[in-house]
């Protein structure tokens, strides 16, 4: 009896037009990647930054959210392995652009407002996708949307795809694509509440899934709660789709509404409900235990310092590092730095503001910590300072408008500190000095609060910039500018951001600032400093050129 199901299931699978499913009994010259519906599950998830912008475990989520009206109509990838381009371009990018512009359903139905999966897939370099429109991964597609953008279906209709070679790109596609970019993309946790939280914030989630037989022939709005193990066509396939909604009352545990790209004849008018738990435990699958889930922020990325404000009103604190180098021992370092107030008001210590030098994991900013923490407050007598450890001090000094910390405190041009890198630092990190780290001043320009001593992720091992690591990955900083910098240079310094042409998807300064604000508001930052202070009592080191 069960065998009688084979033929209709097989025929159904073919009828869907799911692209390039390999049939073991027939050679298929067009398919160089077996079981490919278009998602090649080889994203290097460990090098994609994790989103930091969700308060995990929020208990105030609505019981259901439906973002489907914010999406274009169900698309159909046809027989091509272009599902990633459909998920990332046509569905996600169209939706986030439509949400930003508050487009109506009617407007979203116009190809003028729909991003072209043909343009996106064609724009992916040939060495990063399968031949004859046969698959790619999320990273390659998202990189294109971030760096080049994607044209609309009006300009690049989904017809006559040919071989999808990038040599087929047309100049008018590329010129239009520049107006449709994303700032960045981030991976998110494979967790029900996390996904729900993004959806509730109108942020669609793109993901990779491993499909079984029953998915191929789904034709109802029932909730998918399991995979069939046996695949009648002999292959399990990886596919890209988008989460466009959720409903706690669907199915046994609640379900996500998934948007596919197989036309309206499949599933429930082109959609499928997938049980929450089944989704995160089994369905979402990128091979080797990976859970490929991504979000993106709309808008053009910007690898130039965002600081373009010619005047600074109020307090405007801008740290400046001249040098940071390994001194002696494996984690002993010296940093020469200053902090300028380029605003038109005094930065008073009575405002209880802080100056931190922090590290954060290049691919997960939630892994962050304090290197040095200096506090400006009135807990000590005026015009004095107190070193609490090599890495921490309290200052009771007011930094006047146009003044700086070094001359105010020590009467020097810079401060020089011997400090110790935390020994638990192992992995790839960015280091950044942050003025007004606890956000006490309402600054018109917060971007120059940051000074990055790392233009690329640097490798550390137990706090040491590891021996044997290539020069590019070893941490040592020397500022190109010598001497006291001009105010204009301080404002527009390239050291304000980690986003560079070689690392366009690094955490942006505004992300880091927002992240630290939340950590400060929650009290976590203070707890980290307190814990750090407890674990680093007064020892050798500290300011070397103090008066």
């Amino acid at each position, binding site marked *: 009896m069960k065998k009688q*199901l084979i033929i209709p299931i097989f025929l159904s699978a073919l009828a869907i037009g799911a692209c390039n499913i390999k049939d073991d009994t027939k050679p298929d010259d067009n398919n160089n990647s077996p079981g490919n519906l278009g998602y090649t599950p080889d994203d290097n998830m460990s090098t994609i930054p994790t989103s930091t912008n969700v308060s995990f475990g929020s208990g105030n989520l609505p019981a259901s959210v439906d973002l489907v009206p914010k999406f274009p109509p169900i698309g159909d990838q046809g027989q091509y392995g272009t599902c990633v381009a459909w998920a990332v371009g046509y569905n996600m990018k169209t939706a986030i652009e439509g949400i930003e512009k508050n487009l109506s359903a009617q407007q979203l139905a116009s190809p003028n407002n729909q991003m072209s999966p043909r343009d996106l897939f064609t724009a992916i370099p040939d060495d990063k996708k399968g031949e004859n429109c046969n698959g790619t991964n999320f990273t390659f597609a998202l990189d294109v949307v971030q760096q080049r953008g994607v044209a609309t279906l009006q300009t690049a209709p989904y017809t006559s795809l040919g071989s999808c070679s990038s040599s087929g790109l047309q100049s008018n596609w590329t010129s239009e694509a520049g107006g449709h970019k994303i700032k960045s993309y981030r991976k998110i946790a494979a967790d029900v509440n996390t996904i729900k939280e993004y959806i509730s914030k109108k942020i669609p989630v793109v993901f990779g899934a491993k499909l079984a037989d029953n998915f191929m022939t789904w034709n*109802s*709005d*029932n909730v998918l709660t399991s995979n069939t193990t046996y*695949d009648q066509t002999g292959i399990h396939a990886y596919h890209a789709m988008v989460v466009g909604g959720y409903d706690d009352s669907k199915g046994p545990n609640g379900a996500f509404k998934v948007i596919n790209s197989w036309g309206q004849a499949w599933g429930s008018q082109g959609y499928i409900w997938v049980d929450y738990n089944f989704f995160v435990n089994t369905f979402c699958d990128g091979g080797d235990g990976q859970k490929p889930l991504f979000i993106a922020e709309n808008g053009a990325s910007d690898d130039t310092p965002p600081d373009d404000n010619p005047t600074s009103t109020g307090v405007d604190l801008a740290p400046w590092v001249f040098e940071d180098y390994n001194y002696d021992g494996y984690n002993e370092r010296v940093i020469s730095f200053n902090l300028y107030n380029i605003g038109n008001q005094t930065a008073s210590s009575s405002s209880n503001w802080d100056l931190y030098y922090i590290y954060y994991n290049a691919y997960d900013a939630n892994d962050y910590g304090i290197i040095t923490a200096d506090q400006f407050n009135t807990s000590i007598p005026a015009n004095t300072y107190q070193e609490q450890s090599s890495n921490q001090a309290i200052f009771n000094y007011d930094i006047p408008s146009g003044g700086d910390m070094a001359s105010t405190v020590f009467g020097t041009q810079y401060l020089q500190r011997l400090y110790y890198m935390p020994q638990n630092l192992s992995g790839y990190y960015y280091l950044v000095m942050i003025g007004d780290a606890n956000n006490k001043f309402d600054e018109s320009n917060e971007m120059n609060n940051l000074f990055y001593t790392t233009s690329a992720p640097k490798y550390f091992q137990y706090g040491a910039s590891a021996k044997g690591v290539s020069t590019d990955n070893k941490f040592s900083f020397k500022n190109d500018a010598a001497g006291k910098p001009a105010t204009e240079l301080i404002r527009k310094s390239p050291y304000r951001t980690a986003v560079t042409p070689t690392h366009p998807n690094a955490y942006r300064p505004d992300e880091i600032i927002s992240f630290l604000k939340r950590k400060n508001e929650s009290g976590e930052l203070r707890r980290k400093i307190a814990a750090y202070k407890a674990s680093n009592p007064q020892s050798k080191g500290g300011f070397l050129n103090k008066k």
Partner: protein
Amino acid sequence: MKSNLLFFLLLVLAPLASCFSQKKPNTSNSFSQQIAKGEPVIAEQKEYKDVVSFIDIQQSISENENVYRQSIQSAIVFKKCNFRKGFLASLNNNNNNYFLTFTQPVLFDSCYFWEDTDFRGCDFGSSVNFRNCMFYGKANFEETEWTSNVWFLNCFFKKEVRFQNSFFNRKVNFFQCVYDDLCSFQSCFFNQDAQFSSVKFWKYTDFSLCTFNAGVFYNYAQFFEHTLFNNSLFRDRAEFINATFKKNMEMKSCKFFGEVKFNKTELNDVWDLGDAIFYMGKPDLPQPMNAVVKTQNVKYLKLESLQ
């Protein structure tokens, strides 16, 4: 001469014996030898403190991509046994799935499964009987194939029970079972009569996308939470006599080809029959009707009128 021959044999056979001994089955407990010989596995009033598993990776044969199957030729009989750490007749190991085929009858009588049981993907070639068993862990029977008759009489399922995508070729009997947690038979195929009479379904229950090729009986069954029969095909009798549905019950897009009985059925909340088709005409609906009945696009046909 004799000693030379003996020595020669030792030289030849010793390494061979070593090779065979290296190929040790990893079936747990004392069953491996009996199973290897095809002898019945019989145990009564035994306590198993470790996980009981019949999976022997080395005896498994590749059946499909990442799927391996092992054939158990022994009859399996456990009476009044306690499985403290669960029972595994299915294994996922490094993305490879290992399943079992039981060619002989299987009986679990009055057994206690204190942790999860996993029979996913099992093929039962002969009769299977889980009578009076207590499942205190999750019970996974997904994608099982039951060639002969099946009994789950008077079983208690404390946690989630999964039968999705299973195929029941002969009669199946869940009489007087209790499902204390969510229960799913989604996409199951019942080729002969399916008996769910007097069953208690305490949580979310899913019979959507099922095919009932013969009669299905939910007489005196009680459903305490949301229950789904959406998109199911009832090719023969479907009886819900004296059944109780305390919460929403959905029969959207169901097709009833045989006689359907809702005599004295208690319905509450909402009964959704949207897009359902009754090929034997409109059934008698229970009175009084406490539920709000949704009948959008319901069709009541008579088969003879189609001829």
